[in-house]
């Protein structure tokens, strides 16, 4: 299974042929901190629910026929005082006296013949946007139609993303929820990962407890799932606050025996993982690998695996349909790349084209940035693992089957025009973190 990763180094494009997991050739480019821009985070308080407005304050616009010199009289008659006048739109900001309630006052004012309209002074919230400088290049998390990487690179379609910013308003995850990254290891000292590691992990290739990455693939995957977020550095991870447990089951060539992978899966399940990311695969079925996946599932672990990048049948372990979410890839326009594997086992899809993430320090040479781009269902699976960790953080009582169904049912059916409903190419569709996590508003039935 030879795969390749395309990355950028010091402005020059460096395409390196690497043996890795499920990574395909991708768009090269160097993220620019200037282009990314610092974005200030702003969090909606958890206790604020329903309509939010400034207590004791209303906005009032008088009818045109009301002379300006009588306005103060009218305001006083409402037992209110003028705080400000938005003269361009002839609207007054009033503060109510005597503890009058906003909703009742607004209702009364709207019945007054001299008032054109009255309304509460609602409070708007900024979407949660982390201050990581490369966040602007992570179209997968929030796609505004921005260039994918360097100037001149393709631009995405707005909203062809997994709605991370809206979902982070509901939860940023629990540090006690651990995502085991079964891969080539993780750069344990990467500045965007070092504070997110639950331990130095387990290395089943060299049989020790130092799961350092000697390849690069695992570091890339770990960053996508749960890089340190809002730390003013690098990228944002999907599972903002969740932890990473590195488990090295692939060697320096990005290859690992099924027995090693099975060992890693059972060890992770017994060592606190609630989510296991498996951005690896092969075409052959194995009872040993299946049993290991089932064991973890039975232990309460959600498993997410890349479907494969060969444009053919879904590989294993993703194809273990009952126990594992098989993840296909989409791009910045919400379309499926031809190399994304397909079959009835595909559950969901997530962005997997031109994905920016962490690379081991020094990977591109001294002084280079520790971030780069790659493609593949590996990246897609990592996004889904991050979402699974957030769901488990918010609702730790759910079973793996329930978490998997929440992820499936909350998808956007982006290929509904050609394949309505669940299909073999994208499953239920591209994951939607907002639908999976943010409360759905129950409205009156139409006609009720």
């Amino acid at each position, binding site marked *: 299974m030879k795969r390749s990763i395309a990355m950028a180094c010091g402005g020059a494009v460096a395409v390196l042929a690497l043996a890795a997991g499920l990574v395909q050739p991708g768009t090269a480019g160097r993220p620019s901190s200037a282009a990314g821009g610092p974005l200030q985070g702003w969090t909606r308080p*958890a*206790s604020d*629910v*329903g*309509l939010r407005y400034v*207590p004791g304050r209303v906005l009032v616009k008088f009818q045109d026929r009301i002379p300006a010199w009588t306005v103060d009289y009218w305001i006083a008659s409402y037992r209110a005082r003028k705080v400000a006048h938005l003269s361009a739109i002839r609207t007054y900001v009033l503060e109510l006296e005597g*503890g009058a*309630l906003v909703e*009742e006052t607004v209702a009364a004012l709207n019945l007054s013949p001299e008032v054109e309209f009255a309304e509460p002074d609602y409070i708007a919230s900024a979407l949660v946007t982390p201050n990581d400088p490369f966040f602007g290049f992570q179209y997968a998390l929030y796609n505004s139609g921005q260039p994918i990487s360097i100037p001149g690179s393709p631009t995405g379609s707005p909203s062809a993303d997994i709605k991370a910013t809206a979902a982070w308003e*509901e939860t940023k995850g629990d540090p006690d929820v651990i995502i085991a990254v079964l891969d080539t290891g993780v750069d344990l000292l990467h500045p965007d990962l070092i504070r997110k590691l639950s331990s130095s992990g387990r290395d089943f290739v060299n049989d020790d407890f130092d799961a350092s990455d000697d390849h690069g693939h695992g570091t890339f995957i770990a960053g996508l799932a749960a890089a340190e977020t809002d730390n003013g550095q690098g990228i944002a991870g999907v599972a903002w606050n969740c932890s990473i447990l590195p488990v090295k089951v692939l060697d320096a060539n990005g290859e690992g025996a099924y027995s090693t992978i099975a060992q890693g899966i059972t060890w992770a399940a017994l060592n606190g993982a609630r989510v296991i990311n498996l951005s690896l695969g092969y075409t052959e079925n194995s009872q040993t690998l299946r049993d290991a996946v089932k064991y973890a599932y039975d232990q309460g672990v959600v498993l997410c695996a890349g479907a494969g990048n060969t444009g053919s049948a879904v590989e294993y372990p993703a194809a273990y349909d009952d126990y594992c979410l098989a993840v296909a890839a989409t791009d910045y326009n919400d379309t499926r790349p031809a190399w994304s594997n397909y079959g009835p086992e595909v559950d969901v899809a997530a962005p997997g084209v031109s994905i920016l993430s962490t690379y081991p320090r020094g990977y591109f040479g001294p002084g280079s940035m520790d971030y780069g781009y790659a493609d593949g269902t590996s990246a897609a699976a990592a996004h889904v693992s991050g979402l699974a960790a957030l769901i488990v953080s*918010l*609702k730790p*009582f*759910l079973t793996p*089957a*329930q978490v998997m*169904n*929440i992820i*499936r*049912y*909350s*998808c*956007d*059916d982006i290929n509904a025009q050609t394949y309505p*409903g*669940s299909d073999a190419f994208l499953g*239920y*569709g591209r994951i939607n973190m907002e*639908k*999976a*996590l*943010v*409360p*759905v*508003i*129950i*409205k*009156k*039935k139409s006609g009720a």
Partner: protein
Amino acid sequence: MPKTGSIVVLAAGLMASILLPTSPLYGQPAGVDLSVKAGVGIEYLNRTLSWDENTFTSGLKGLLFALQAEVEVRKGLSVGIQAGYALSDFGGLIFRELPFSVEYQAGNMGGLYLGGSFKARASISETFDIELTAALDAYFGSRGEWDLEGLAVEGALEGRPFWTRIAVGPVLWYKGLSYYVYPYVQVLYTPLWGSFRMTETVEALEGTEKKAVAGSGRVTISLGVLSEISDAIGIRAEVYAGPRKGGLDIGGSGRLIFSF
């Protein structure tokens, strides 16, 4: 939160306190002047609710319509019951333990409204009466059904709300006005409890969450007036304000009373 059993016990206690021999508050012979009143009442209920261990708040708004009957079993002692229909809106209540979290914004839900009260009244001067009142009422919402929209598959929700409220406290009546108009002020301890049971079904996913809620404030101050239009007909109107953390809940009620 009191369960239905607790409500029955409380109601039984209320009845027992009326039926068992008691000392009249102001020395009138007992049980000699039985009078009956009937009425039609409406209340605008407005309370702030807190839930999830006071972490979150939302509103409870409602309209309560009731037929009321009140019997003066002894001089100054009366017992009343009421039954009717109520609309309650739990807008803003969020269920986060369902597989898909949901926020209720579907407006009023109708339901059965029942209540009972006990009053003991005594004259403390020529112009003032003092009354002690204890009341219990409850709303049993009917089942609601909604679609869970926006998902890749169809989903449905089914919910049933409930609340109960106790009101205990003194009422100070002023009798100094002419034309049979009697204003009053009352301070009531009015805890409110409730629950909203919601069941969600989305294909293979199913979950039920019973959300316990409680009134955010527990004391209300009311100003009201009773106007006796004739010997047989009276009108009572009242506005209440309940202070709570960060604001004030304001509601009110009106009643048309027929005396026999």
